[in-house]
């Protein structure tokens, strides 16, 4: 048997450290492992014994790109357990903060992490230096709106400090938020230009079947609240999350893999899943951005359409932010006193990369007894491997370089955050 191997030391432009090992014998994949060597940090363990009020400062440190998601899943869950009635306007300010995180994270992925793939560049910096400066600058300008909103509401864009169980330590003023109106109005026009920029990018076609999972909510596109649903008709809630899904530990990964408990099959969370399950609650500009970016009639299962879904969701986040800011009344007082009680706090929110589940078992003093955190990327890891197994056999006529590149692109579709799930992907394809 002739033996060939491809080694790429680093698959870049993802958040976190991992490696991909593929072995192909006679046209068949005999080994495929997404190795997560991002070192474990043991958050769920060192949370034990900490006071509930510290959790919203601890868990954002799991991820510098989606700290708000971690704060929100934890805060909402504990407020439900403690039966806290938060001041009016708190939900709206939290949704606005979440919109800001989606804008920042999605525009980072579309422009800095994904777009260089489709234009043949190594980075957005190279894109900007070689003919695409206006597009990169536009992307960074849109991203900046998300960052600035986060800093206004949260004190800083990475690891905001104001969100707490019971509300906010300080509520942004009307004037601080009103100052964003003009930029958001301009952004609604510019995001359609981003959709037109994304649409003609040449992408591989990969219309594979998959079970997509997202929160669903009848009143608005899900961020902070909703129940769970899949494209194959499953429904469940945060309370039953650990029965419906389970995490499996595989030898090659410091991140756990999620599957459905009953069928032991993988599933897929994130912008494309949310879009497919929540098309009905898309806002008008988001709907137009989706159509212009290439999302057609449902279902849209091709994972390469994730980029279009991120653009549509960014449009939605801009629209929602504008609506929320125009109607904004600061919560007064900004937060209420909280009295802990023993029990189990569970909640899900929609992080930029997909559903984020948290559970905290709390004692009477409000100390954490046990914590469970299921990030979107660990739910997607099994499905990334699944996609690679399906796609690669049909692509074996490609050169080593092309094959390696497309494998990286399949992983990047998920915008994996390996810091969350437990960074670089090292790709190593062996062929015999």
């Amino acid at each position, binding site marked *: 048997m002739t033996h060939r191997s491809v080694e790429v*030391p*680093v*698959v*870049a*432009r993802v*958040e976190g*450290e991992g490696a991909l090992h593929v072995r192909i014998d006679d046209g068949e994949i005999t080994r495929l492992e997404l190795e997560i060597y*991002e*070192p*474990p*940090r*043991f*958050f769920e*363990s*060192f949370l*034990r014994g*900490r*006071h509930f009020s*510290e959790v919203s*400062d*601890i868990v954002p*440190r799991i991820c*510098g*790109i989606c*700290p708000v998601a971690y704060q929100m899943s934890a805060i909402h869950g504990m407020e439900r357990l403690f039966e806290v009635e938060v001041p009016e306007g708190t939900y709206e300010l939290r949704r606005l903060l979440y919109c800001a995180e989606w804008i920042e994270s999605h525009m*980072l992925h579309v422009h*800095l992490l994904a777009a*260089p793939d489709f234009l043949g560049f*190594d*980075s*957005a*910096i*190279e894109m*900007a230096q070689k003919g695409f400066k206006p597009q*990169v*600058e536009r992307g*960074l300008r849109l*991203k*900046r709106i998300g*960052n600035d909103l986060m800093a206004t509401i*949260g*004190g*800083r*864009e*990475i*690891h905001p*400090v*104001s969100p707490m169980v019971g509300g906010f*330590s*300080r509520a942004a003023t009307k004037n601080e938020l009103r100052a964003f109106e003009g930029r958001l109005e301009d952004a609604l026009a510019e995001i359609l230009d981003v959709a037109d920029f994304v649409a003609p990018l040449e992408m591989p076609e990969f219309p594979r079947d998959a079970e997509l999972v997202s929160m669903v909510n009848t009143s608005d596109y899900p961020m902070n609240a909703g129940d769970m649903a899949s494209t194959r008709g499953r429904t469940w809630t945060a309370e039953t999350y650990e029965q419906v899904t389970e995490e499996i*530990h*595989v*030898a090659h*990964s*410091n991140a*756990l893999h999620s599957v459905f408990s009953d069928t032991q099959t993988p599933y897929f969370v994130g912008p494309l899943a949310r879009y497919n399950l929540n098309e009905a609650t898309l806002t008008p500009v988001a709907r137009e951005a989706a159509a212009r970016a290439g999302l057609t009639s449902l279902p849209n299962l091709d994972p390469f359409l994730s980029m279009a879904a991120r653009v549509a969701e960014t449009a939605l986040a801009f629209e929602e932010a504008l609506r929320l800011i125009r109607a904004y009344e600061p919560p007064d007082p900004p937060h209420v006193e909280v009295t802990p009680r023993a029990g189990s706090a569970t909640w899900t929110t929609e992080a930029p990369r997909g559903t984020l589940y948290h559970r905290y078992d709390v004692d009477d003093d409000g100390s954490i007894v046990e914590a469970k955190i299921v990030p979107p990327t660990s739910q997607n890891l099994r499905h990334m491997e699944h996609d690679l197994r399906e796609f690669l056999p049909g692509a074996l006529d490609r050169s080593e370089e092309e094959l390696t590149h497309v494998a990286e692109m399949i992983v990047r579709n998920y915008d994996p*955050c390996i*810091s969350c799930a437990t*960074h*670089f992907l090292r790709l190593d394809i062996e062929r015999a």
Partner: protein
Amino acid sequence: MSAQAPAKPRVAVFKMASCDGCQLQLLDAEEALLELAGAIDIVNFAEATSYVEPGPYDVTLVEGSVSTPEQIEQVKAIRAESAFLITIGACATSGGIQALRNGTDLATHVRNVYPTPEYVEALASSQPIAEIVPVDLELTGCPVDRGQLLAALAWLLQGSVPRPPTTPVCIECKKRGYVCVVVAKGEPCLGPVTRTGCGAICPGMGRGCYGCFGPSQPPNTEALAKKFVELGMKPTRVADTFRFITGYAPAFREAAERLERLEREEATT
């Protein structure tokens, strides 16, 4: 950097155990990032680019703490290839939040998180980079302050070495006219013992500082701990306040240990 340094310094960015937040500060520099990219050659920065050149590097930024045996070797290799090594953020400079495991039983933590503990390899302690190799400049913060980071690179481009301030957050609050959260609200705040750099974000947001930038010089943690106890906090909770984002920094570690010792002594008498 020496006068012989090339016109465009070769810069690399590496990550150990961390959340990506500090290197994200570079990507969040946005327009400044493109400007910076014109003044330096980014030759290794995996989060931003697939383009990689081997060392040596003129300036290397390292985010994250050393928490596996391989990372000890990796950090030594990075040091050997770097003329000027800057560690960025709480993880790289004091072990990070994950240093909460230091001094406790690693096997318990592994069992608490992983169904198959034997698959997991980690050091008993999460260590700052300077515990493994000499470091030329430490920029603290969780995350590192973008202004401080860009200023440090700008200073280096000019051939000087920046010296970030070590004065406490309190000074910043006074400058900005913020109401003191300890005095006005009776809430614990690490501002008197934490070095400035963030711009007193937490007091500005109506809450106590929780120590992201590490200990100021010199930090009177004993007096502050006493004040917290007077405010009605249990000594173990006060110890937790020090044992937090930068809890493995020596001054905060000693403060927490002293409080726990007192608690034990009181329990036995």
